[in-house]
């Protein structure tokens, strides 16, 4: 595939991510922060997000497996995940976190378990999408092209 085709593919792909609310305007803010001094800024932040989210999802899973669930602790973790997903523009993940926090507040175990499943699902989707997007960017660079903004 030639550079122009790849670039077009990337632009379309990105547009679809916004259209389907996987990403929101905050992600654009992230991209705008990237410059020649920090050419990998977006990838760095997103990688941090992946690591941190995976850690939090593990904590959430463990917390919900306890005999006696510590809802405060649960909520604290969800709050973190909500914050990070909001900061990078992972809108769908953030939305589930909002619902999740409500269930924590109401100490609704069923609700929390459902939300955990949902948030894992949304996280896995956005992770795949972002990785695909980064791969496309790499391909463009490897083919000697520049990544469209």
């Amino acid at each position, binding site marked *: 595939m030639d550079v122009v085709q790849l670039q077009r593919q990337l632009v379309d792909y990105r547009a679809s991510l916004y259209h389907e609310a996987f990403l929101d305007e905050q992600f654009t803010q992230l991209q705008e*922060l990237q410059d020649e001094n920090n050419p990998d800024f977006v990838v760095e*932040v997103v990688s*941090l997000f992946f690591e941190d989210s995976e850690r939090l999802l593990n904590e959430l899973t463990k917390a919900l497996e306890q005999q006696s669930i510590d809802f405060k602790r649960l909520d604290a973790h969800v709050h*973190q995940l909500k914050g*990070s997903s909001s900061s990078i523009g992972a809108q769908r993940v953030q939305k589930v976190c909002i619902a999740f926090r409500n269930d924590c507040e109401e100490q609704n175990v069923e609700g929390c378990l459902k939300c955990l499943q949902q948030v894992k699902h949304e996280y896995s989707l956005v992770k795949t999408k972002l990785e695909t997007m980064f791969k496309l960017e790499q391909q463009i660079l490897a083919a000697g092209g520049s990544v469209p903004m």
Partner: protein
Amino acid sequence: MAGGGCSKDTAADFGDQPHVLAVDDNLIDRKLVEKLLRNSSCKVTTAENGLRALEYLGLGNDQRSTLEGTVSKVNLIITDYCMPGMTGYELLKKIKESSVLKEVPVVIMSSENSPTRISQCLEEGAQMFMLKPLKQSDVKQLKCHLMKCRS
């Protein structure tokens, strides 16, 4: 406390490169706020909680008041509100209680747009309250505001 003619306006000497202490327990948010500030030509130090921030500022529990006659290391403190242990509000209070640091502007960030929270912070002396997630335009506005405060 401060010696002779040392009634320094801590903000006055930073020229265009204010030194900002950014406090946030969220790793991603720390990285983001740091970049936003650096993009606005600020020198940035980050802290992951209120205690670490206080230690950095010289107000730690086991630190004596070694701040006699010294000027604050930082020109601005920006802190998240919701943090485990010490909240941003509690950190703000501690800073305002310090004779050396009380002149340092403190900005609170929060993802909750709560009017009670906002007025509580402003009443305690916070310079500004900013809604997360922060954008570049927010930080630019903040810097303008900070520069104006000097004059």
